């Protein structure tokens, strides 16, 4: 028996590097996963690589469009009868000096990283409130806790995700809906592959600053996600699980 046996989970951003790992862990633990991504081939690839007691079903979703999210909700309710879990793992990144960031760029980052998370929470949260059960996990970032260099929009969006998580946790606790966040430390993804290349100055600084002296592996995030979505975490809401090799705990 997996820890998520019988649960239906919507995984938004399931086609990314972290999303693919999340998908593997969710399926291994027995969940039925709607692997949603703006790019269907990426969602299909994640679904194909997941094996275990559960199932992965790829779907194309534009999380910036409420109608697209609502279609997925209707599909899930028709096929599965309930949505037990929602994971918001889609995101974008932008690194440039703050004085050069255009309003369009700011809006794009805030739209994908924060507004889309709110919309998904709203659409699926409504169904969870009606069911009187559900667990939402939003993927934040180190950038929600500390200021990272020349990434103002990303930092603001991730800080927003943490606070949105707490606000919804407070509001929906009476309905049996838990809302938590995971803040990953530094993991290689498509978004940061360029700036964190092996041997680069930034990579070296990140490794030096992390007590474990290395980047994380995407598979090291999955178990935390499984824990927060599972019934074992039934008294955990409004919490942030930091998975960072000690990055935030460390001084010099």
């Amino acid at each position, binding site marked *: 028996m997996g820890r998520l046996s019988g649960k239906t989970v919507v995984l938004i951003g399931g086609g990314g590097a972290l999303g693919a790992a999340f998908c593997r862990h969710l399926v291994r633990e027995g969940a039925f996963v709607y692997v949603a991504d703006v790019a269907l081939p990426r969602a299909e690839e994640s679904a194909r690589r997941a094996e275990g007691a559960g199932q992965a079903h790829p779907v194309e979703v534009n999380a910036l469009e409420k109608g697209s999210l609502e279609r997925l909700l209707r599909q899930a309710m028709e096929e599965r009868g309930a949505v037990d879990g929602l994971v918001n793992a889609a995101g974008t990144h932008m690194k440039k000096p703050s004085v050069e960031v255009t309003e369009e760029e700011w809006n794009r980052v805030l739209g994908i990283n924060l507004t889309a998370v709110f919309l998904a929470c709203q659409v699926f949260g409504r169904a969870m409130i009606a069911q009187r059960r559900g667990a939402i996990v939003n993927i934040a970032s180190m950038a929600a806790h500390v200021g990272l260099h020349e990434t103002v929009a990303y930092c603001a969006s991730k800080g927003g995700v943490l606070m949105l998580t*707490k606000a919804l*946790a*407070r509001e929906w*606790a*009476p309905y049996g809906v*838990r809302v938590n966040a995971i803040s990953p*430390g530094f993991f290689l993804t498509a978004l940061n592959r360029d700036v964190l290349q092996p041997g680069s100055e930034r990579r070296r600084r990140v490794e030096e600053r992390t*007590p*474990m*002296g290395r980047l*994380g*592996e995407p598979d*090291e*995030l*999955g*178990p*935390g996600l499984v*824990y927060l979505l599972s019934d*074992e*975490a*039934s*008294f*955990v*809401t*409004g*919490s*942030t*699980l*930091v*998975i*960072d*090799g*000690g990055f*935030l*705990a*460390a*001084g010099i």
Partner: protein
Amino acid sequence: MRLEGKVALVTGAARGIGRAIALTLAKEGADVIVSDVNFPGAQQVAQELEAMGRRALAVRADVSILSDVQSMFQKVVEEFGRLDILVNNAGIIRRGSLEDHPDADWELVLAVNLKGTYYCSREAARIMKRQGYGRIVNISSVAGKVGDLASAPSYGASKGAVNTLTKSLARELAPYGITVNAVAPHAIETEMSAEWSEEKRRLILAQIPVGRLGRPEEVAAAVAFLVSDEAGFITGEILDLNGGYLMD
């Protein structure tokens, strides 16, 4: 089972949250050293673990007394040859305000909750460093983060210090494959909470968004996750487990 073949030591394990942690770790496959000042209580828990098919050892130790701690870890090495997991759960609480809090109580609370955690972590780290592997989890409290009138100031001060100790040790021990984390619970249903007046219970519940107290098993599940191999990139983390009472 996530902890097969692991050896775990849980302090304050004769009852309440500590007992639940010992049972959960055993259920996940670990052999467990059950430590408590209450030796008959520790023996009883050890018998429960043995009935589950695990190796268990009851040890009487006051974690605030160095010689007790040292002989306990010596026994662990003699009997088990290794130690993979330490859960610093032993703790005491005193009620009272600033002016009616006897100095002796202040000393006692800090000695058990903080110094005890420090002593046990130090002895455990000696073994874990040799192994190149270890998991330490400290049971903290929401009182280590916010001003709390339900306990004397010593309790919050001790738990706040445990949180910082957690981070310092996480930083120091990371290169040796040892992770150090904490769980910060609030309002868990135990023998301690059973003593609350109806009025106090009502006040506490009114501040918890999920509208109920937590269960010792819920704390134990968080500990089981943090001490598993799966949680190897998590260190220096203080996991809040409070039904939404505090979201800092």
